[in-house]
C-alpha cells in the first residue's frame, strides 16, 4: 500500500488494515467495449466466482469515466472496467498512488470512417472530422496519425484538417446533416457510421503490431488489492470465465449483452449493428501494456498530455500495472501469462 491509499482506507475502515468486506463494488459502463462486464454480471459469472469467499458483487454503472475515478478515489468503488484515458488520468492525478491496472478486457474496435468520396488524407484537407472527446484514445490516435501523415492540427480544432470533438451521438447527427465528413470513433459507432453510408478509411488495427491495442481494461484501488488479494483473484477468475464464455458462445454472449444493456439503458443497438461491431472487437485479459504506453506517448507528442505529470507519477508503465494476481489466475486456468 501507499501513503495515499492507506489514508483513504484508514478513514473508511477504523478496524484496521484487512477490513472484513462482504461485497465487491464493481464499476462499468453500458458500452459495447465493456461487454465482458455486462455479460459476466448478466450470466452470473462473477457471482459464482466470488461465492466461495462469501462475497457478493455490487455492480455500479457509470455514465462517464471521471465519476468512476472519483468513486474509486472516494473509496466508494473497489474495481472498475474503464478506458485507458481515465485510468491514466487517475494514475497521473494521484501521483501514481491510487489505482492499478489488474487485467485487460477489450482490444481494438476503432476506425476512421469518412464519406465515400474521400480516398486519402489529401481528400480530408479543409474538412471537419469528429472524435469522441478531446484527448481520449481515438482523439489522440487520430491526431497522431494525421501528424505522421504530415497534416497539422491543433487541440482547438484548427489546422489543415479540423477536428471537432463531440459526443458520438452528436457526431452521427452532424454527419447525417452534412456538418462533418467523418470521424475516428470506437465501436459500435464505426458500424453506425457505416450504416449511414460512410466507409472505413483507416482501421486502427492496422496501425498496431498484431492488430491489438487496448480499448478497455480493469483497474482496482491500490489498497484494495493489497488488503484483499483473494477477492481480486476471485473476481479476475470470474472475468476470465466471462471472457471464456464470450469466446465459447458469441451468440449467447451477444444476447446476454443486449439484455443487460437494455435493462440498464432501456435501449440497445440494432442487431445488425451489434453483429458487425462485435466482430471488430477482441475480448482478452491481456492489458496490452505496450499499446497504452505508446498511446500516452502519442498524447504527449500531440500536446494533450504533460510529460511532467507522468514523470511525477513514476512514469509509464511505472507502477500502473499489477498483473501478478492475473497471471496466477491465468496459470491456474492453464493459460499463458501476460507481461507488463
Amino acid at each position, binding site marked *: 500500500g501507499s501513503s495515499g491509499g492507506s489514508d483513504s482506507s484508514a478513514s473508511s475502515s477504523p478496524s484496521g488494515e484487512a477490513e472484513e468486506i462482504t461485497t465487491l463494488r464493481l464499476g462499468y459502463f453500458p458500452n459495447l467495449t465493456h461487454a465482458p462486464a455486462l455479460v459476466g454480471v448478466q450470466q452470473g459469472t462473477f457471482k459464482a466466482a466470488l461465492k466461495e469467499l462469501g462475497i457478493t458483487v455490487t455492480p*455500479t*454503472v457509470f455514465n462517464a469515466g471521471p465519476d468512476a475515478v472519483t468513486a474509486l478515489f472516494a473509496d466508494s468503488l473497489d474495481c472498475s472496467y474503464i478506458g485507458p484515458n481515465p485510468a491514466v488520468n487517475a494514475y497521473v492525478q494521484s501521483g501514481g498512488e491510487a489505482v492499478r491496472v489488474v487485467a485487460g478486457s477489450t482490444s481494438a474496435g476503432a476506425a476512421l470512417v469518412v464519406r465515400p468520396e474521400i480516398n486519402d488524407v489529401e481528400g480530408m484537407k479543409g474538412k471537419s472530422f469528429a472524435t469522441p472527446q478531446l484527448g481520449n484514445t481515438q482523439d489522440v490516435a487520430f491526431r497522431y496519425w494525421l501528424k505522421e501523415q504530415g497534416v497539422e492540427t491543433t487541440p482547438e480544432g484548427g489546422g489543415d484538417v479540423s477536428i471537432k470533438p463531440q459526443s458520438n451521438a452528436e457526431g452521427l447527427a452532424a454527419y447525417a446533416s452534412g456538418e462533418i465528413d467523418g470521424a475516428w470513433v470506437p465501436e459500435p459507432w464505426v458500424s453506425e457510421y457505416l450504416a449511414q453510408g460512410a466507409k472505413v478509411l483507416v482501421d486502427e488495427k492496422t496501425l498496431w503490431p498484431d492488430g491489438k491495442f487496448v480499448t478497455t481494461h480493469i483497474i482496482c484501488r491500490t489498497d484494495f488489492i493489497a488488503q484483499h488479494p483473494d477477492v481480486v483473484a476471485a473476481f479476475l477468475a470470474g472475468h476470465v470465465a466471462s471472457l471464456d464464455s464470450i469466446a465459447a458462445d458469441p451468440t449467447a454472449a451477444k444476447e446476454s449483452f443486449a439484455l443487460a444493456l437494455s435493462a440498464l439503458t432501456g435501449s440497445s443497438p440494432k442487431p445488425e449493428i451489434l453483429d458487425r461491431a462485435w466482430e471488430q472487437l477482441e475480448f482478452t485479459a491481456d492489458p496490452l501494456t505496450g499499446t497504452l504506453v505508446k498511446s500516452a506517448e502519442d498524447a504527449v507528442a500531440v500536446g494533450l498530455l504533460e510529460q511532467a505529470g507522468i514523470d511525477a507519477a513514476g512514469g509509464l508503465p511505472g507502477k500502473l500495472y499489477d498483473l501478478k494476481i492475473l497471471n496466477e489466475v491465468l496459470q491456474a486456468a492453464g493459460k499463458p501469462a501476460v507481461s507488463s
Partner: protein
Amino acid sequence: MSASVLTPNVEKPAPVRSGAGWAPHMWAWIWPKALAILLVLAVWQLVYWSGWRPAYVFPSPIETLSQLGTMVQTERFWSAMGTTVIRAIGGFALALVIGTMIGILVARITPLRLAIGSLITGLQTMPSIAWFPLAILLFGLDEQAILFVVVLGAAPSIANGVISGIDNVPPAFTRLGRVLGAGPVAQYRDIVLPAALPTYVSGLTQGWAFAWRSLMAGELLVIIAEKPSLGAQLEFARQFSQAPTLLATMLVILILGMVVDGLFSSAARSLRRRRGLEVDSS
C-alpha cells in the same frame, strides 16, 4: 330621442356564474391547448414530409407518438417515471425547506446578505456536473448523492425567489407590523412572508425547473439497473442516437413540466384571487 347620441359604455354583460356550466368551461380550457398541439404536430409532419433531414435523425410525429405509445405500455417506463418523479419531489421538498430558510435569513440579516447574497446566484449558475465529485465524496454512490445535486441546483433559485419576494413587500406592511408591536419573528411570520407569498409561489416554478434539470443530470451520476430513470433514459436515447425514443422522452418531460406548472400557477392564481389581485370580470 336622447339615447341616439349616447353609447352604452359596457357592452358585454356581466359574467353569469352558474354551477351548471362545467362543460363549456372545460371546453374553453381545452381548445387552445388542442389547437396548439395540432398546429405543432402539423408543422412537424410537414417538415418531415419535406425531407429536410433523414428520418433516422428527424423522425415523424407519428413515429414518435407510436414510440411513446409503446413506451407507456412497458412497466419499465412507469417505474422510471416513478423513480424520477419521487426523486424530484423529494429533492424539491428538501430544496424548498433549505432554500426558504436561507432566503429568509439572507433577506433579514443585512451582514449575511452582504456576505452570501450574491453567492446564492453564484451557486445557481454552477452546472450540476461540477458538483458530481463532491457529491460522490460526501455521499458515495447513493440516492443521497443525487439528492445533493438536486438540492444544490434548486435551493439557490428558491432562496432567490424568497429574497426577491421579501424585497418587494410594500414597506407600509412592515411599518404596520412595527406599529402593532411585532417582534422579528412575528414580523416575518405574520406580515412579510404572507405578503411575499404570491411572488414566492409564482417563483417556485423556477425552483422546480432547476430541480428537475439538476435531477436529469444527477441521475447519470450512477445508473442502477433495477431503478431505471427518465434522466438515464433521455441520456441513453441520445447516446444511442435513437431519435424517436429521445423525442418521446422529451414529450414526457414536457408533459410532466406542464402538469407541475398547472399546479403552481393555479395555487398562485387562487392566492391572487383571495387578495383581489386577480379580477374575474374585467
